[in-house]
């Protein structure tokens, strides 16, 4: 009977046997608090993952994320020099008899009964003059769950599968992914391929509006629409020198199906005065193909580690974006570090983005006033403080500020719109607490 390590020291793992090639469990959690300027969106997002590692490099992982979001979000309409009124569907139990006040400064108004109508009330809210129209009644909760397993497989260094599910009040996503990686060159070179797919279901409150139909407080007959996504990522990771790690990835993605925001309007304004005449539900194409190239470099200079990454993105909606991120981790003694970071981002507008439509033009095939699809630049500045409480537990605090800079005064603005700020993007502050813990 050969002597074992257990005989030598009484059995079990002790001390610092954590890391690649050993058997241990890793717990990782984070809490994100996010708040936009001007009373816009606020979100709290706790999340946690648990990963069991094996000697051979096997990994079994479970993750859970919860999101609570509330606040005001732009509804897509442009500001006007007069007060504007917006309506959204509202379901109430029983019949509606009196007008009452609902949350976020809106009103519950009864609808006169008509044949085939599915709801008896509507939510009405007003926007003051010269103010960006926002819907204050925005609130949502999301739960997401993911699991994955990976291990060496035959000649492959690693093969893995993963699945995820996420559900919120008006949206559901089911994801599946698989990957293979192969190491060469005494593990200095790694090639990887991952394939990912997703099926999403949108079931908005009030139903799916017909494209470019008028703002309408009635529940729509179509209740849900789907979207499917399929993509792959090819990656090359290289340990170039003892202190330089490099990664180069190419991603391809294709989405088909319903990609419109079912709550968002686009204003139709008078071609001369710029006064709003009508609000239509937006319409986006049913197909979106995108590609991106990502290059990341990490340099370990001893007391500092520098991380620099660049991304170039392009899609069939006409969006082209460039991203650059830089962070510098500076060790303060053995146990703690600070890490300032900066991110610069620039995107062009989608080819169907419009600030508004006019009554003098024919309706385009697709149009959206969603600021996410507008041209803008964003900058983020962050600072992180990390504390290694024990060799296998770490507590991190990060904070940052995100700024969006866009054109609120397009050259071709007409009438009263010349005096309005048409850019609906906003700044946000975020705070993140992270906790990592390795154990057996």
């Amino acid at each position, binding site marked *: 009977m050969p002597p074992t*390590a257990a005989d030598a020291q009484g059995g079990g793992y002790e001390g610092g046997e954590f890391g690649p*090639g050993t058997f241990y469990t890793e717990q990782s959690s984070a809490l994100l608090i996010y708040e936009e300027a001007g009373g816009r969106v606020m979100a709290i997002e706790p999340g946690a993952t648990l990963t069991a590692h094996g000697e051979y490099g096997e990994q079994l992982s479970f993750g859970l994320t919860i999101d609570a979001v509330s606040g005001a979000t732009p509804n897509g309409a442009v500001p006007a020099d007069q007060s504007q009124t917006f309506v959204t569907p509202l379901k109430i139990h029983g019949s509606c008899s009196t007008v009452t006040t609902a949350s976020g400064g809106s009103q519950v108004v009864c609808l006169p009964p008509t044949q085939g109508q599915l709801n008896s009330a509507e939510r009405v809210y007003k926007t003051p003059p010269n103010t960006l129209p926002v819907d204050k009644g925005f609130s949502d909760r999301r739960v997401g769950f993911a699991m994955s397993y990976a291990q060496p497989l035959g000649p492959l260094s690693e093969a893995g599968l993963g699945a995820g599910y996420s559900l919120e009040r008006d949206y559901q996503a089911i994801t599946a992914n698989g990957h293979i990686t192969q190491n060469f060159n005494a593990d200095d070179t790694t090639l990887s391929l991952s394939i990912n797919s997703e099926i999403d279901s949108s079931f908005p409150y009030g139903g799916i509006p017909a494209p470019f139909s008028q703002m309408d407080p009635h529940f729509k007959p179509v209740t849900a629409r789907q979207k499917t996504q399929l993509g792959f990522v090819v990656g090359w990771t290289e340990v170039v020198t003892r202190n330089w790690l490099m990664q180069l990835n190419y991603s391809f993605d294709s989405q088909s199906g319903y990609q419109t925001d079912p709550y968002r309007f686009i204003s139709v304004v008078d071609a001369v005065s710029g006064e709003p005449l009508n609000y239509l539900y937006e319409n986006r194409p049913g197909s979106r193909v995108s590609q991106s190239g990502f290059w990341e470099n990490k340099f370990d200079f001893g007391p500092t580690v520098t991380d620099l990454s660049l991304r170039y993105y392009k899609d069939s909606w006409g969006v082209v974006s460039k991203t650059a991120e830089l962070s510098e981790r500076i060790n303060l003694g053995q146990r703690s570090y600070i890490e300032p970071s900066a991110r610069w981002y620039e995107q062009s507008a989608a080819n169907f983005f419009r600030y508004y439509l006019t009554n003098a033009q024919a309706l385009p095939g697709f149009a959206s006033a969603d600021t996410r699809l507008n041209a803008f630049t964003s900058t983020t500045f962050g600072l992180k403080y990390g504390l290694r409480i024990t060799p296998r537990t770490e507590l991190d605090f990060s904070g940052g500020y995100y700024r969006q800079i866009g054109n609120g005064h397009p050259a071709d603005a007409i009438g009263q719109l010349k005096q309005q700020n048409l850019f609906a993007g906003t700044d946000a502050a975020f705070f993140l607490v992270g906790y990592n813990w390795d154990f057996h």
Partner: protein
Amino acid sequence: MRLTTLLAIAFISLSASSSANSDEAGTLDLNAYAGKVVYLDFWASWCAPCRVSFPWLNAMAEALGPRGLVVIGVNVDHNRGPAEEFLRENAASFPIVYDPEGRIARKYGLQGMPTSVLIGRDGKVHATHSGFLREREGTYFADISELLN
């Protein structure tokens, strides 16, 4: 510039003799162990499986030492400090040789960390194991026993 440096190192390592006269850092004199089975274990402070392997190496040295096994730990850390800290946390009951520039490692053609090189009584390399897996302790023990007989 990089190519010349690499060629210079290659020449030095190729021409280095396997039997140096003293146990300075970067040299390994196996003449002292002629006729014994030598288990060379290449380890580093940053290698997690190395921590797992040390209790087993101690057990091997204690149990099979009388039968002619010599365990030698070759440390490849760049700096002595982290290696000594590792040894404070994981005591070794076998001799340690320091190889900060990796000359011994290069001579034995390491492909991963940790690596164990099993040298028979005839002074020849009989097996090289890349990695240390608790599951394979029995196999490692069997390989050593075979050479001891």
